[in-house]
């Protein structure tokens, strides 16, 4: 039967995970706070652990958790860092 699909097939392709990083020494890691309450405290601890492992960290924040990150923030991350830790959600 010839059906009209409700799906946009361009968006259905599953994305593959990037390979895990074996060595954090010297890697540029962004910590992205999504601005839920006390998320920063959790990221503080993550940052400490990453620095112990030799990563170079930077801190960033979304204006609100309820909307996608602003394009300028995404561009900045793409340009300046190699890895991103995003948190903290429910």
């Amino acid at each position: 039967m010839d059906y009209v699909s409700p799906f946009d097939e361009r968006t259905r392709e599953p994305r593959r995970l990037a390979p895990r990083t074996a060595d954090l020494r010297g890697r540029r890691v962004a910590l992205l706070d999504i601005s839920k309450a006390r998320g920063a405290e959790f990221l503080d601890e993550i940052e400490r652990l990453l620095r112990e492992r030799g990563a170079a960290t930077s801190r960033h924040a979304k204006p609100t958790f309820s909307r996608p990150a602003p394009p300028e923030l995404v561009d900045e991350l793409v340009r300046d860092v190699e890895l991103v830790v995003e948190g903290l959600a429910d």
Partner: protein
Amino acid sequence: MTLLFAHADCPTSVLALRRLGAARADGAALVCVAQETPEAAARLARRTGVAFTVLAEDSPYPVSRAHGVDAVPTAVVLERGEEIERVVGWDAAAYERLLGVQLPGEPRSKPGCGARWMYDYGARGGLDELEDMFERGWSDGLPVIPPTRERVEAMLGGRDRTDSLGFIPPGHGEATLERVAACAVLAGCKPAYFPLVVAAVEAALDPAFNAHGIAVTTQPAGPIVIVNGPARERVGLNSGMGVLGPGARANMTLGRALRLVLTLTGGALPGALDRSTLGNPAKLGLCLAENEEASPWEPLHVERGFAPDASTVTVFAADAPLSVSDHRSLTADELAYVLATAAGATWSPFWWPMDYQSLFVVCPEHAALFRAAGWRKARLREAIFEHAVRPARELNRGETTPYVKAADPEDRVHKWTDADRILIVVAGGEAGRFSAVFGPCGGMGETAITKEVRWTT
């Protein structure tokens, strides 16, 4: 010669064949034409134990159609190629007379079923197409109408199918009119409903609605649809008895069509990108028409700046409705207090004040009480706002706001940050004093969005 038309999904056909099989009816005089594939016809013959010939006739069932058989079992008695008699359904006495056999047992007669070709859309097996929709993942859990090209063209009603309404978050599938029409067909909409579906999608895509946040949240809320103006009557929407529940095709399928656009085209499938912990029943789809005729006030769309004779669709993110019974309040103020108290518990009982919108659906009997008291809508809104107030000390537990935690224990805290967070419509049946308040979708910075319906014909 008697041709006995039957198919395996008709219990009466199976009954007839079993009885005839048990009676060893003479195969010289009787041939069964099964509206089945050869394999299925063979299974039917084995199952019913018939000794006479069973022929298989698959789609498009030319012999059945040629004999005008639209029900099974039907026995067509032929003499020299001409029909002299027909027996529709199971009729033991008629078969005994025709075949000269005894057919004991009950029932002696029973109505039949539709012939295979009455409802199989040209494909084999009747329900195969509907199962196919489930297997493809084109469903919300209930059966959907397969979106054939013909049905989608009829739904589009001459519109350009490549026109785009935008990209639907969170998956960013593009909402071409063709895809929106496919979802409307899936939902069971009539083409007459399509302009409202389009308007609802446009409203949901307004950035101020924040469809993205609402789609992926762990909260239970989902978009609901409120219709105002002449569209209600034009498409047959229910604004009266049972308005928040099932029963009216326009209401059920319109609400469902918007949800299918968001979940299928937009990718917000529960358990995938839709992370709602519990969901809520209204996420199947909810569309209500305001009962403007029973309302003492200006309708929602007029309040929001549209002409009374404009047809509009308002999309609002809401949790399931909380029913508020009040058959005892005698004054407007008392009733407002009851509505306010009920609303106080919605979304999170102590998260006061909340900067989220609440929708009240006031039933006609309650609206009549406000009318008799001479209360305008603004007065009711203010009264609800003022009555939903508590000292901070009562709110300082569990999930509460930084505002409450920082407040003096005796500070009076309102449920909402502002009275303008309160939306009010009138809907429901004429008898019964049950209003409702919808829980909000919190923290999304969203607002209800109203769009005018554009008719092309």
